[in-house]
């Protein structure tokens, strides 16, 4: 099942990042970076966010069910505004850093350069699978909160993610008041 731009927008709306916030986010390659004031610091953030996007896409490839397509576009569209969100964005960057650090130390490569089975294994070896999400917790709990569960929340609060499970209007998605009245498709 194909994840669409609409799904990413819906996932963002479910997290309070609809409309304004989503529109305000301009990617480095989005052609809207002509600000002469943007100096090294901004570039650094861009580089880090590029890295965060690559890691998040690589993680989503493992976390999302194999039948969904369009993961890269969905994750990058979703992640942009999320990275710009006060406090939360730094949490994501930190989680990405933790995962990247482990990948280097244990497997001598960037997380996103590992093959999917290895990425899955690494997350499990870190204990992320059994960890409860906690924004101020251990490394595993923070990775679970900011990276793994953020991506799962984005998918399953979107209409396409909901449909995979049999619910077109999942919690968090303002999908109207028709679907609850309808029988199964």
């Amino acid at each position: 099942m194909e994840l669409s731009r609409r799904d990413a927008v819906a996932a963002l709306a479910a997290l309070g990042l609809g409309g304004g916030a989503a529109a305000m986010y301009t990617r480095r390659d989005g052609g809207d970076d002509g600000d002469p004031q943007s100096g090294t610091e901004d570039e650094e953030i861009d580089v880090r966010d590029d890295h965060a996007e690559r890691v998040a896409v690589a993680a989503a490839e493992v976390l999302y069910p194999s039948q969904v397509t369009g993961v890269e576009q969905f994750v990058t569209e979703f992640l942009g505004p999320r990275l710009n969100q006060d406090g939360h964005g730094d949490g994501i960057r930190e989680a990405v850093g933790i995962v990247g650090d482990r990948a280097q130390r244990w497997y001598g490569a960037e997380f996103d350069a590992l093959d999917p089975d290895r990425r899955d294994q690494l997350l499990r070896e870190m204990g992320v699978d059994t960890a409860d999400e906690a924004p101020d917790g251990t490394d595993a709990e923070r990775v679970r909160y900011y990276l793994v569960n953020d991506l799962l929340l984005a998918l399953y609060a979107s209409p396409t993610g909901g449909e995979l499970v049999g619910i077109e209007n999942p919690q968090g998605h303002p999908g109207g008041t028709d679907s609850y009245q309808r029988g199964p498709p």
Partner: protein
Amino acid sequence: MSGQGSASRQDRSPVTDADVCVIGAGPAGALVADHLAGAQDVVVLEAGPRFDPGDRVERQERAIRPAFDRPDVWEMGGERDDHAASGEWFYPLNHARVKGVGGSTLHWQGMVMRLHEEDFASGSERGVGPDWPIDYADLQPYYADAETELGVSGADDNPFAPPREQPHPNPAFPPSYSDSMFADACDELGIAMHSVPNARNSEPFDGRSECVGYGTCQPVCPSGAKYDGTVHVERAESQGATVIDRARVERLAHDAEAIEAAVYTTPDGTEHRQEADAFVLACGGVETPRLLLMSDSEQYPGGLANSSGLVGRYFMDHLFAGVGGVLDEPTRQNHVGFLTSESHQFYDEADEEVGPFKLEFFNYAGPSPVELALTGDDWGDDLLDRLQSEYGNHVAVGALVEQLPREDSYVGLDPERTDDRGNPVPDVHWTVGDRALRTIQRANGIQRSILQELGAEITWTVGPDDTGPAYHHMGTTRMGTDPASSVVDPACRTHDLANCWIAGSSVFPTGGAMNPTLTIAALALRVADAVDAALE
């Protein structure tokens, strides 16, 4: 996300020459303030913050994510909200209320029905408990006004409901797909289903959006389609009322006959005195008696308005009963967070042995897939397999059950523990009683027969052993004609103090089994009329 709103009166100093001081900005206080603003100079003191409406979607994330508990959504908990539960039955107080502009309706479900006529006469009609000193006819016009104020979406299709005088302001939400499954089973069993009056907009109303199906009504509606007390707080302010948030009233200064001032503290610890001609206590069924008890004096050593010794006594809640199960076909749950069908069929069979109860047909039985996806140690295809197998075929029938008032069920002050300001914390000493437990059993029997008729495999029951409260705090400043056996008179004015009214469910002599807030709203409008008349 911060609880400190920008629109708040920043200096938080008292208003000079106030006619009316309302304490508490939940729906009760908000309705009183709105009704009186314009005609009177009104100030509202609210202990909690003014939350930014723009934060609601972030609060929704808290509602969905397992890292947060329910009280975290509206920042309840900590030393300010410390409490005790010395009774046999634990009472999870901070799950059961919100402190802030809008009060507990920020969190509520929004089911709003009128009490039945017999609820006002439990003693004479059912042989147990006191009669109310007012009856349905006294409250009926106020019920109609309250439905208009709350923008209730409902229909006149409930054959068991008390008489109505006008249609609801908005049409009822149509039944859900699962309601239609229940309807077949209930038809077979001769049980009539009908719509649920909801304090949420089925159509755009009063400048607020129609319901858009976020599905997290309890504990937060990001669209504002669900009514909450902020609606009337804002309206009261637009008519000139002053609302001071984070102003905690710690004591009511008084002489023998009247309240002189509400003594409150602001976040920096400064103490202020708000004087007024009339005071309306609208702090909810736990904090209202607590404030009266904390305002003891030489004149009133047992606490204010307490010459009956009954302030805090007769604490009641509604109890939950439920049976759930699974079918071998999709039931389409969790698309929205509210109910569309109920049955009041068995309600008026109540007698001494078994109390009134109503049945609720769930639209959110079983897990929500999003929430389920964030727990467990699987992901990828395994997670999707789990979600597909756990979501989709659940059904459940709930019930609310009446509990009778008992003197040994009470809200008191804990002598050992204090809050962050050094005031004794409330002790909710909750005692339930056998009639309520028998009623739960009776409800469970009917619920089981419905699920069996539906062909469901029953997987859970909430019965007398594991029931819990519905978070409706009633009875703790009961209404009556006799000052020896009640705290407020039929106009909700305290017997002891001429300028003190109480708005809220603490005045209910009995609770029936209907969610209380429409009755709270009706009584609040009636209190506003009484205060207005007294000030003329």
